């Protein structure tokens, strides 16, 4: 059989991208039904029943969903605003360097920075104490390991907002938004109309795939919620790892149930969203 060149690319993609993922998924699926696993005794629905009955998974899913949604909305909104207001300044060298910098910092480091800055014994708490705003560490507001996930959301924003700023700046240039704006202006559009009818629709339409992908990425984030999250509810990845690594070997399969459920939900969502549609615009 002759192999054509484009086929090699697809073959490589399948080998590197699909096969390991599919194998891991099948492994997790079998583990979740107790078919494999040294401490398991054969096929059972027991683990699925107990995960679905306990409700922890759905609480975690809701919690992760809300955190990722808030973080993406604030990041995209902030990035749009920055692009709109500070586009010219950002094209200068120094500022664009500052924007690139956070992209080079891994999530786990961002998590630690946030903890160092905002914990009750952290940088801001110490400054507040020195300035006399608080007299005891416990008076400093709960900003990390807190119920509203403020620390997690803050870290996510610092991680992805710079990316969206760069993306929007590029789309702005490539799609000639500036020229279109001038055109609209000469046809009598007000500044608000230009923003709402020209600037926003073009930028969002060209980037929505990436926005959704970042949302999915945050949904499954691990390090940041591990450092900055609370013990309950937890974000999904933290919950999965905790279940898989637990002391009670008989319940390890429950972690795999959560992993399988999560993979299914994300995959279905991705398929529905990205199914080829007519007349659709892709991000560049």
């Amino acid at each position: 059989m002759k192999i054509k060149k484009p086929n090699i690319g697809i073959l490589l993609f399948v080998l590197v991208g699909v096969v390991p993922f599919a194998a891991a998924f099948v492994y997790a699926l079998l583990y979740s039904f107790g078919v494999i696993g040294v401490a398991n005794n054969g096929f059972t629905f027991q683990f699925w029943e107990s995960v679905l009955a306990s409700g922890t998974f759905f609480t975690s899913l809701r919690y992760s969903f809300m955190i990722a949604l808030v973080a993406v909305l604030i990041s995209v909104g902030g990035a749009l605003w920055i692009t709109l207001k500070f586009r010219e300044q950002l094209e200068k060298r120094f500022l664009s360097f500052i924007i690139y910098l956070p992209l080079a910092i891994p999530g786990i480091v961002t998590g630690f920075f946030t903890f160092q800055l905002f914990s009750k014994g952290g940088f801001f708490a110490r400054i507040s104490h020195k300035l006399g705003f608080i007299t005891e560490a416990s008076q400093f507001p709960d900003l990390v390991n807190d119920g509203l996930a403020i620390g997690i959301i803050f870290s996510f924003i610092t991680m992805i907002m710079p990316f969206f700023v760069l993306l929007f700046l590029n789309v702005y240039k490539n799609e000639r938004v500036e020229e279109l704006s001038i055109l609209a202006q000469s046809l009598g559009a007000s500044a608000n109309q230009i923003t709402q009818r020209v600037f926003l629709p073009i930028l969002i339409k060209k980037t929505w795939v990436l926005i959704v992908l970042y949302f999915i990425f945050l949904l499954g984030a691990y390090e940041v919620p591990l450092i900055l999250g609370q013990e309950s509810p937890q974000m999904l990845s933290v919950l999965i790892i905790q279940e898989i690594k637990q002391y009670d070997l008989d319940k390890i399969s429950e972690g795999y149930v959560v992993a399988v459920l999560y993979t299914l939900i994300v995959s279905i969502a991705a398929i529905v969203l990205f199914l080829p549609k007519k007349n659709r615009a892709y991000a560049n």
Partner: protein
Amino acid sequence: MKKIYYILFGFLLSLMVLSCGEKSKQDDEKLKSAPWEEVEAKANGTTVNFMMWQGSTAINDYINNYVVPSVKEKYNIDLQISGGQGPEIVQLVMGEKQANIYEGQVDMVWINGETFFQLRKVDGLWGPFVEQLPNASLIDFEDAFINTDFQQPVNGMEAPWSINQFAIVYDYEKVPNPPKSIPELENFIKQHPGTFTISNDFTGMTLLKSLLAELGGEPNVLDGPFNEKKYNQLSEKLWSFINDNKQYFWKEGRTFPKEQSKMNQLYANGELLIAYGFSEGGIEDKVLNGLYPKTTKGYAWENGTIRNSNYLGILHNSPQKSGAMQVINFLLSPEAQLKKADANGMDSNTVLAMDKLDLEWKDKFLEARKRQYGPTLKQLEVNAIAEPAPEYMIRLYEDFRKKVIEN
């Protein structure tokens, strides 16, 4: 046609691998009764992989700068260290079992009773081997804190390495009279809200075991095999005590630190007034490193805190079992144990019985550098209780999550 050759080749290859596994299994059985000289001869020139918790500089320093060069010089053994504790070890063993790997990555592991229980459950340990070690004769196996690990007889499947007791840590300048019982703790947290918490890990669960024993009315109430009825009765009281007083805990009990190291930091920066931990509180090196104030002290609960030993085991699929035995024997030698007891170093209590040592070594142990800040094992001795059966810990974990954290 070609396909058939491939299949045949694969079949032969797997047969070969299987037969190798069979052969090494037989060798391993012989090793269990081999004279020490033979073990020593086999150990010479091997590379031994040791998986251990590497979370402390003092421990890493002891292993990397003392044990590794010593076993190379004395026995020509290359000791390789890899990081990993309880769950990682169990995961590794389970993964390798699943994949039918007869020659695993790791030879020996540093474990405690919980991991011992799990590894026994999946037949992950090799042994018994301890009796063969010459230095085992220096250990008092009559001591219940050594011969029983979480209520399970050790039976030579793991060698004790050090012994320690859980202690409560406090700053005597800030808290002149720290609580020593549940009613005192209740008063204390009402007077100092937000300064106490329970870490959601091994350490926190160990504190809960002490509280459970206290609720049972006597130090040894949890001894023996797991008793469901007793657990339900006592834990009910425990959860209602915690939930009734949760609002006085750190962060009003809405969340709990994930692990002990986080709790230690909260103690160091003054958020918590009380911390706790194994190794008699682990106070010495933290004061010497400047993390804890010099006014830090440790004590045991009135009804007792858990005392246990930690152990060294050999994995069932270790490729260098004789090498691992030689290294473990060295770690149990008076020389290595003395070095480990240095209060400015690893600061861990020896498992060797003083009355079994030569006079010369006994004197050396007596002259060894003593702690300046933390309590000694001897001082806590009267309040020592044994580890209850592993199921207590598993249930405490589960219920602490369900009935306290998620409540």
